């Protein structure tokens, strides 16, 4: 009873709560880091150095007026943010946050589930989640939103491929689809997949940032071109959900990079849980850094980059990995 029901429910609640807390603070970190990159402070007013800003934003958004445009497809319009956020949060279930702990004499694994196809679960759900973006853009009855949705669908179809191929080479190296096994295979520093599979790491980073719709690939919501693109007509909590989904995806992406390439929770001295979050936030910081520095690519160039460069590179990497794995047995 306890093992089957109570512990998973507690874990679910803890993971949901803690992760959403971290996601909320990812927005704070992003605003702070961007601020300091740009010679300003970022949020400073609410709490010490703006530490309560995420809460203030949430409260503010709760009290904003709900606006549904007249020519929007109402049902789809309301459903889109829900799709976005729910599938984003579901991704958190399979991420191994740390080594097993013993609490009250019970062994507790620091993940909610360890399906044998963990990584496929993530790839699949992440793609379904992007329906939120596409449907949100299409249903809002706005041409900018429509273009954002259009771009989103094209980008997600394309970049999903190289992302999957980058993951495939990791699967070949590890010999397992389970994220827990992947972490277990990277116990020593030089075993980290970033050293074994540097090409896959780069491809994964680039296509991951593209999947996240972040600069320099923020096509669906290019502020200056489409004035926010797919979420242009969204207000109030509906917008908040999109926003939250986006940052949950960022968090999941960073923890995936940590899990797949940076040795997961392995590290010296500090407990595994701490190492996991240190690495995750380091990856998030790199994403913010890129956003602060690099201009946006043009839509057709983004497609060219994927189909003419990233995909062939990822494919070649998979073949090379296959050959090496086969030879070494």
């Amino acid at each position, binding site marked *: 009873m306890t093992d089957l029901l109570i512990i998973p429910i507690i874990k679910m609640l803890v993971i949901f709560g803690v992760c959403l807390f971290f996601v909320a603070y990812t927005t704070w970190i992003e605003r702070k880091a*961007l601020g300091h*990159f*740009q*010679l*300003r402070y970022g949020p400073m007013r609410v709490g010490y150095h703006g530490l309560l800003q995420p809460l203030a934003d949430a409260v503010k958004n709760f009290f904003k007026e709900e606006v549904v445009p007249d020519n929007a497809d109402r049902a789809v319009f309301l459903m889109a943010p829900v799709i976005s956020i729910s599938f984003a949060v579901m991704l958190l279930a399979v991420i191994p946050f740390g080594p097993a702990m013993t609490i009250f004499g019970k062994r507790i694994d620091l993940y909610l589930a360890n399906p044998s196809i963990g990584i496929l679960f993530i790839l699949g759900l992440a793609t379904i989640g992007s329906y939120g973006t596409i449907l949100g853009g299409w249903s809002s009855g706005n*041409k*900018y939103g429509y*273009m954002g949705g259009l771009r989103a669908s094209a980008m997600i179809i394309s970049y999903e491929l190289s992302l999957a191929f980058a993951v495939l080479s990791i699967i070949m190296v590890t010999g397992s689809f389970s994220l827990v096994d992947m972490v277990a295979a990277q116990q020593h520093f030089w075993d980290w997949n970033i050293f074994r599979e540097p090409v896959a790491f780069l491809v994964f980073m680039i296509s991951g940032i593209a999947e996240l719709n972040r*600069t*320099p690939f*923020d096509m669906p919501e*290019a*502020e*200056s*071109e*489409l*004035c926010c693109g797919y979420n242009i007509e969204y207000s109030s909590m509906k917008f908040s959900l999109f926003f939250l989904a986006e940052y949950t995806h960022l968090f999941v992406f960073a923890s995936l990079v940590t899990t797949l390439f940076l040795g997961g929770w392995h590290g010296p001295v500090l407990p595994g849980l701490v190492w996991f979050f240190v690495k995750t936030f380091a990856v998030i910081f790199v994403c913010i850094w890129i*956003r*602060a*520095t*690099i*201009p*946006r*690519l*043009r*839509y*057709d*160039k983004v497609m060219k980059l994927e189909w003419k460069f990233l995909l062939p590179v990822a494919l070649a990497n998979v073949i090379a990995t296959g050959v090496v794995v086969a030879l070494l047995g």
Partner: protein
Amino acid sequence: MSESKTVTLNMGPHHPATHGVLRVVLELDGETIVNATPVIGYLHRGIEKICESRTYQQILPLTDRLDYSAASANNLGYCVAVEKLLGIEVPKRAQYLRVIMAEFARIMGHHLWLGTHALDIGAMTVIFYAFRDREMIMAMNEEIAGYRLTPSFIRIGGVAYEATDDFIAKVRKFVAWFPKALEGYHQLLTDNKIWTTRTMNIGKISAEEAINHGLTGPSLRGSGVAYDVRKAFPYSSYGDFDFKIPIGENGDVYDRYLVRMEEFKQSIAIIAQAIENLPSGPVMTDNPLVASPSQPEVQTDISALIRRFMVNAKGTPVPSGELYSAVEGAKGELGFYLVGDGSEQPYRLKIRSSCFYLASALPRLLVGHMVADAIAIIGSLDVVLGEIDR
């Protein structure tokens, strides 16, 4: 075969990248622009009409509001036109101070252009670096004129105040600092691969076409035409200074970018020369029709007091006649066509806005490009709606 249909996309007047209230109606085939129509008039304040019922001095602050990102350059253009019609000579020191202010205005205008242009293309940090340095110029404006964005420092017949020592020290400091800042801008953008792919071969216009469209300023020089009013028809002692006119080759967005980046350098060189060789002497002409008498004079001499009232309340009578006089604003040739009828108000003041011509070239430049390029092109022309709509 099914016939492909185009979509009409209304970009602006409230769009983050149309710089104010420019509205461009785009006809799109997919994301490719097949037709573009700029629509202006959302910022029309009737400045030219207001001018007809104001004295010549009262018009001056209105000119600040033309190209508000480079206000002093507009002041200079208007004052030069009025002084030509009045036939008065401005003291050398005032001319140098005017040059300093006008070049600072150009740098301020280019700062705004650089920041927003980079922001449009997605490099969001540049604007904050540009505005850090723009803020220093604002502080100098405040020091010498009391106002930051719209200094109205240049007056008919000279400048408003004597330069303070603080101001001169600040200018020297800025001149020493700015090349470093400029290096920083270059590092962020110039060789960035994404930046060059976004800007090279985009919005190309040949020298001949650029002239035919009436382009002036950096947008014309980007196409390789070395036309600059400061060199072609020197005013306000610009002949005294040693500076180059940077030109581009291809006339694309990248060349216009490089031209403006080089103009930063040339402007700062002009300011350095002007501040080092600042002549001594008065900063206001002694023409009694224009210059307000000094405070001690007013307090001791009744006729000086009367003259102050006449100059300030009634205005300066300007002889009949008409003339066109142009200066190099931050965006291009800024012309003032002035018709005087012997009274204290102009009969007509027509402003030749360089931005109007730049915006009129948009249909030619945008067609065939993608929506993302439209943003880059509008940014590279650097139109300011305050000057287009007047």
